[in-house]
């Protein structure tokens, strides 16, 4: 690990101010931003140890956990999740488990208990891809790390890589689980920066790779995520996260689906579907939602939804299996969600 300056901030405003003292270009690769906030550190320190991230300054924001931004608030209006809340706290919160099961499940099925105890939910949504070529600096080719250098994964071992949302420049999978759950419940993200406060639909936060895979999110350099908000959807209770992986803990998704359904008897009134493990960003499967809207969830509708979800999929040498697996994961998640007692 390279040497860096370490500072602490106790409020979002203080953190943003500290970060703002280093001039930062908006076009710089996300990974190369010279100032990094340190939350749980479970991703940042890892990335620094393997020399992929080399910040000059690290602003420790853990003290913010003592403010409202470390808390969880559930009311009849919905849910407010402070960015510094730990994954384990959210996953184990009784109201979250009961009223927003997809949120709790996506967190419980992620990483390991030790990691969940440390990791914040704000840091979670910003975790970097696990693409092995991105994580190994001995490969010169990686557009995400080094724009224009090429993509070693295209001709490499790309079993874990994405089939949706890929571009010629990058096919790396978005690795997290929680983000899909946020999308399934139409969450918004609250952001503080040098120019004040703003919020956006969470589904807008991540950017597809297109020609600029090094630009990972729509956060400006130095902007801080302060919270996630979820409006009171009566049907959030009928939601579920299904994750398929190579082993039962400590492992990322091969395919996953976050599903929320508003049912009128056995007819789907409204559906939200987000897919993980198969796409370059947390993937809202709008076409699949559309397929089942207003329909009875029979085998035909399920098959149509799965087809629609992967209609634009593109496979690479080692990951063709992800289409069949992704479809089955989605249909099973839909079937099980529809069958939930709420």
């Amino acid at each position, binding site marked *: 690990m390279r040497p860096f300056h370490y500072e602490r901030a106790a409020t979002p405003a203080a953190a943003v101010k500290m970060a703002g003292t280093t001039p930062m270009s908006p076009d710089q690769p996300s990974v190369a931003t010279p100032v990094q906030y340190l939350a749980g550190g479970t991703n940042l320190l890892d990335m620094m140890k393997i020399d992929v991230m080399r910040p000059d300054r690290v602003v420790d924001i853990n003290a913010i956990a003592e403010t409202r931004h470390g808390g969880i608030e559930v009311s009849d209006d919905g849910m407010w999740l402070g960015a510094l809340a730990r994954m384990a706290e959210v996953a184990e919160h009784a109201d979250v488990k009961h009223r927003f099961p997809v949120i709790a499940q996506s967190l419980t099925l992620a990483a*390991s208990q030790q990691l969940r105890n440390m990791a914040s939910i704000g840091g979670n949504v910003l975790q970097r891809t*696990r693409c*092995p070529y991105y*994580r*190994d600096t001995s490969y010169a080719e990686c557009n995400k790390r080094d724009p224009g250098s090429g993509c070693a994964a295209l001709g*490499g*071992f790309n*079993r*874990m890589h994405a089939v949706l949302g890929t571009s010629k420049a990058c096919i790396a999978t978005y690795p997290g689980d929680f983000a899909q759950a946020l999308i399934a419940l139409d969450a918004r993200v609250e952001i503080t920066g040098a120019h004040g406060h703003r919020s956006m639909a969470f589904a807008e936060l991540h950017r597809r790779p297109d020609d600029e895979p090094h630009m990972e999110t729509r956060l400006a350099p130095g902007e801080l995520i302060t919270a996630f908000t979820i409006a009171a959807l009566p049907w959030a209770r009928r939601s579920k996260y299904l994750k*398929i*992986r*190579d*082993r*039962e*803990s*400590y*492992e990322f998704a*091969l*395919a996953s689906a976050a599903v929320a359904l508003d049912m009128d008897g056995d007819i789907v009134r409204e559906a939200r579907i987000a897919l993980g493990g198969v796409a370059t960003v947390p993937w809202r499967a709008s076409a699949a939602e559309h397929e089942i809207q207003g329909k009875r969830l029979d085998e035909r509708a399920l098959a149509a939804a799965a087809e629609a979800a992967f209609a634009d999929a593109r496979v690479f040498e080692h990951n063709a*299996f992800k289409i*069949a*697996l992704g479809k*089955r*994961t989605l249909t*099973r998640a839909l079937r099980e969600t529809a069958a939930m007692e709420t």
Partner: protein
Amino acid sequence: MEKLDIVGQSKQRVDALVKVTGQAKYSADLRRPDMLIAKALFAKYPHAIIKSIDVSKAEKLDGVAAVMTAKDLPGRNGYGILVPDKPVIAERKTKYEGDPVAIVAAVNLDTAEKAIALIEVVYEPLHAYDDPREAMKDDAVKIHEQHPAAEKGNILCVLKLDRGDVDKAFAEADIVIENDYETPMVDHAYLEPDIAIAELDSTTGGLILTSAGQAVYATKRCLAPVFGLPQSKVRVVAPVIGGGFGGKEDSTLDVCAVAGVLALKTRRPVYFELTRAEVFRTTGKRHASYIKHRLAANRDGKIVAIDVQTILDKGAYVSMGGTKAPLHGVTMRTLVYAGGTYAIPNARARAYSVFTNHPYSCAFRGFGAPQVQFAVECQIDELAHRIGMDPVAVRTLNMLKDGDMTITGQIMKESRGLGLGECIQKVTQRIKWDQPIDHGKGPVRRGKGFGAFIYGTGIPLAFEGSSAFANLELDGTLNVAVSSTEMGQGIATTVAQLAAQTFGVKYESVDVVFSDTGRSPDSGPTVGSRSAVMVGNAVAEACRQLRSRLLEVAGKQFFQADPSTLTIKDGLVYVEGRPENAEKVATIAARAFVSQVPLSVIGTWFPPQPTFNSADGQGEPYHAYGFGAHAVEIEVDTETGVINVLRSVLACDVGKAINPAIVEGQMEGGAAQAVGYGLMEEPIMAAGVMQNTGFHNYMIPTTKDLPDLESVIVEHSNELGPYGAKGIGEPPLIAGAPAIRNAIYDAIGVKINIIPLTPRRVLEAIRQQAGQAR
């Protein structure tokens, strides 16, 4: 018979407290004054000609104490346990990713890393071989331009076993089953990475090497020529070790060689530790295998012949792979176990060991047995299905019984322990084998599977045997010294129990010194499931001698009784049956000391000398064999390909469990490792470059992937083992993977003959089968 009150008890491990309180010192915890840190520049290309190396910039860097290339070495640029073919630093050619091209010692890690980055190497890359079947072709580029042991091209050796008339048996048999099997090259995945500290020995002028290694004497012998030193001037010490599984018999040589030559050059202590990625890329692996297994049987289920061809991926160097002279290594074991644990009158086996540009394949728990016995145990199930017989019944019908002959021509004797029948019975009972299983109707199906194994105790070479040292202190405590290493498997505890029981002091009165060539005689390497038996016997022999010397003194000078009427128990000496009239061991020891009776003993033990004929693979390679049976119940998700092991029941015949908790520890560890071997562990190699070099993408099972691992200890006494013991270190791994594979067939009727059974492989097999059915 003597009543056992220490042997057979689950005594608290001698190293338990220091380990759980964090006081135990592993190699990485050690520092030396003025110590330098080493780094190696490993090959950029797994197969390449080195055109030039320029170290001038690195040498000029502040804080760099030495930069060495092959031309700077003090002694022979080659080492290896069987053949000295692995260079300390590659000179003309690189043969795998783990060949150092240059090495550096500097004042700290940062400087060492910077120096490494400044070294400029020009390579001419060559085609790198991933598949031994390609590398063994006549037109393949020779990986070793000249190799001291290779038979032809990249073929290191071809070993043979011939028994009976195989062709006739096949021609006359009712049923022939022929299949190809593949097993992966896997990493040992020990938690502690490889580390060595080398320092000058101020008393002898030689070197002291401190390293997590499994064979301190072998390390000394292999590396003395590398340092240009006589063996007497090299001392090797292994502190407690964080797992080895066979790998640290070899990998310790790699790190000791680098640290050692740098220490000699700089005259300062040198510390060398591999990163996890370097452990994956550079250290030894299990031999991957490609097996063609043919089995002939009669309709009644009796196996009449086998014909087996095994091709092993040797990787870049011989390591423990196998040569004809000495006839040793993993290759030979694939012959011995080609027929599994069954009595088969006619057998032909051929084993090819072939160089590739992979990490050298070395010893790994099971040493060739898991590979071929995977094939055998799948074949047995196929036979059962073909003739409509229960797979367990086929095994019971064919298993080796008292008086039967193995395919190497060895006659099995109950007096050496033949507990397979009891293992099978206990396992089938526990898993309710006779009761039909509900296979399920939805996408998730259930099944049960079975596997059995045989595994020889010890090393099948002429030198097999052990020495151990026992010293009775004048306060009545006992010191035992062995060169075996303690890597979590519990040998120090086992030795302490054997010593206390045999001599007659309390377990707590024994202290064990281990793995230091300067402090104990040669007990042999800590491999081959041998230590409890070979080293245990040597320790017991030393303690018996000490005991009789002490009783002699007690009889003459204290009790005026024939020594044979005396006993020692819990540190007290008395006439048998009269404990109220006892003398302390300490009192008698003090008297013995002034009576010129020596209280230090070296005990030795040698089994009947192993034999194995290289012409036809016949002989008696082991004095005794361990056996076992493993049943699993699994769930296959046919939509995702994910397999979930619901139950695992393993029974092993260990002869005698000296410490049952330690035996269960070995059994649970082996069963867990078998789940990894069967389901997920697999290095991804692309032209010699390992793609998954961290635990985030090289998968081993977590506790969540494992069911409650049920272990049943079976004891069929080995007349030559200490208190009847046989080896248990490696065997528990062997039959798990085939049991899982057989359970998948039971669940969904799909046969997969390649492990690991990853979700992707399972899905593909389901799809293929559906395609064929259509």
